[in-house]
């Protein structure tokens, strides 16, 4: 017996290097596909399983092309809690910041095949029919259910990832995770404080596809969302169409901005940053002034002349070799 105990103790001692590598100071990374994108979760210490469940449930409930929302869109009544909450939040953002992002634009998104396998340019007639179904006034939210005309289709493409970041934030606060970086493609959550006491460093991707980033942002806990026409687009008859639609004309928007990153802090920062990134992108340089001076969020934007715009109070260092400058 004694021999066995001794060997076991010795074995445990020998294993120490392995165990140390799982300590709170070394990050662990998980990655998987959800919400039509590739998800990265890096975290320091603690258990994150419940947090990941949130990403999966948003994925099941808010995707227009499959699952709950796809079925709900065929009906006139929707009683899914997540769809309800997400709709309610976007409508209150519409009241505050304007109607650039419209969750009732699903029919338009469908006819263009945006984010689908076969994007195409629809006929003018198809566009006219789809535009008729768009408009948040078509929705009635009674505190429990959403009522809508059967042809009005909900589309959370512009906000689902940001909303998912909010759900993750709410869940992660109840775990013993001290620090986590959650990347849902266009929206990310930087949670807590890094074990080394440094700020989070965030590189903003170069919209030209170069591997030299626009620059680096140093920041505390926040939500970050980016919108740009450079990543998801399609070409038809020699013309480039971006994935963001103008709900008034029914056509993809043509913005003189190429990349818009919005940084929000605190509650609901995920959905707000995602919403604003698309909204500001649609508005172009013409409407940038008010966003640069906004107090409740910060932005970093780049236009098609190679100019970078940065809100005051951000610790952002542009990369001189990116082809873009302040």
């Amino acid at each position: 017996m004694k021999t066995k105990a001794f060997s076991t103790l010795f074995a445990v001692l020998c294993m120490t290097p392995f165990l140390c590598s799982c300590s709170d100071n070394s990050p662990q990374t998980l990655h998987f596909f959800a919400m039509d994108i590739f998800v990265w979760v890096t975290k320091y210490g603690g258990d994150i399983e419940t947090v990941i469940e949130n990403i999966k449930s948003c994925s099941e409930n808010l995707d227009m092309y499959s699952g709950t929302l796809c079925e709900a869109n065929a009906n006139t009544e929707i009683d899914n809690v997540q769809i309800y909450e997400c709709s309610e939040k976007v409508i209150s953002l519409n009241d505050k910041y304007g109607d650039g992002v419209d969750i009732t634009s699903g029919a338009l998104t469908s006819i263009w095949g945006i984010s689908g396998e076969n994007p195409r340019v629809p006929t003018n007639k198809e566009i006219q029919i789809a535009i008729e179904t768009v408009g948040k006034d078509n929705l009635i939210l009674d505190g429990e259910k959403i009522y809508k005309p059967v042809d009005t289709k909900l589309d959370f493409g512009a906000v689902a990832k940001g909303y998912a970041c909010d759900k993750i934030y709410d869940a992660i606060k109840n775990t013993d995770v001290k620090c986590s970086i959650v990347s849902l493609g266009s929206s990310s959550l930087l949670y807590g404080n890094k074990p080394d006491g440094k700020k989070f460093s965030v590189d903003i991707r170069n919209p030209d596809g170069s591997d030299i980033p626009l620059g680096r942002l140093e920041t505390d806990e926040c939500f970050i969302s980016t919108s740009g026409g450079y990543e998801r687009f399609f070409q038809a008859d020699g013309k480039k169409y971006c994935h963001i639609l103008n709900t008034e004309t029914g056509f993809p928007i043509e913005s003189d901005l190429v990349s818009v990153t919005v940084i929000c802090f605190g509650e609901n920062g995920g959905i707000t940053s995602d919403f604003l990134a698309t909204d500001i992108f649609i508005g172009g340089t013409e409407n940038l002034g008010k966003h640069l001076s906004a107090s409740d969020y910060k932005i970093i934007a780049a236009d098609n002349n190679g100019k970078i715009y940065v809100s005051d109070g951000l610790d952002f260092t542009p990369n001189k070799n990116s082809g873009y400058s302040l």
Partner: protein
Amino acid sequence: MKLITKRDFIIILSILILAAAATIVPSFIKGGEYAEISFDGEIVETVSLDENRTFTINGITFDIRDGKIAVTDSPCRDGICIHTGYVSSPSQTIVCLPKKMSVRIIGEKSGADIVVG
């Protein structure tokens, strides 16, 4: 009865060797940048970026040139993975959604915690 039998000694020695290997080996790998190629979240290949070469995995063609990696051909329709171009900095990724493929750069360069956009 001896405190440590020959069998115990072998077990302890092999654990020690394993532990030593686990500590030393990663420091060798860290020497240069390398890329992890995953399909559906599973790493299928880890490639060094030090050697120029072109290869194909699951129908996707990868090219390594001058310490950078790119997808140069893919059967997916949107071609987002190809548009991404050559990447070389840690925490940069190439993603192909239709094929559920991702490339992640691992290395020692002073990478950001996250790349957004």
